[in-house]
């Protein structure tokens, strides 16, 4: 099963500068584990304590995975996953 994963600029140092990589997994969580196997270190940038990191947005096709099961969101062959660090900040 081939899932296209789009990598944000700030994580490309972990993927040999690749903007798009391929992975596999039945769920987002499995996909990230698969990616971490091939690109060591990427897993912990995405997942913390078994949960998606709060300020990383992960999209499954056109949806924010937070609304469709988070790490448990199920994947189908041909799906596209996009990772974008949240743009956020504040006065403190």
């Amino acid at each position, binding site marked *: 099963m081939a899932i296209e994963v789009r990598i*944000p*600029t*700030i994580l490309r140092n972990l993927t040999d500068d690749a903007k798009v990589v391929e992975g596999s997994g039945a769920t987002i969580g499995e996909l990230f584990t698969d990616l971490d196997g091939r690109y060591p270190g990427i897993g912990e940038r995405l997942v913390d304590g078994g949960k998606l990191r709060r*300020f990383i*947005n992960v*999209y499954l096709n*056109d949806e*924010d995975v*937070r609304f469709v099961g988070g790490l448990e969101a199920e994947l189908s062959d041909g799906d596209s996953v*996009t990772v*974008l*660090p*949240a*743009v*956020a*900040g*504040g*006065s*403190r």
Partner: protein
Amino acid sequence: MLRIDRSIYDKIVAHARRDHPDEACGVVAGPEKSDLPERFIEMANAERSPTFYRFDSLEQLKVWREMDDRDEEPVVIYHSHTATEAYPSRTDISYASEPGAHYVLVSTREPDAVEFRSYRIVDGQVTEEPVEVVGAGADQ
């Protein structure tokens, strides 16, 4: 250094004033590797807060995809501070995730004056840079 057109500068300041006392935020896109902030994109602050901002996640996806389709990148990422100075806070620094962008901070704490400053934020390091506003202005 940040070189920015007067018209874009004015739009950023107007947006910050309009959303005061909530923090305003947005992006100015430009051609990849050009360092030219050309296309002003106001973003909604999903937090709608006077002390925090966050791009709505689906709006961010739409804008980032659009930039990708147009071979653009985020040249400026701006937001406002409504009661504090126009300097990156600890949260601003920890969430800065576009190492190539100029981080513009506008402060609307004074009703009659605006502070507009620009920074590079890379690997947790903040470096202020001069801002050059180009193009027609009131006193030119």
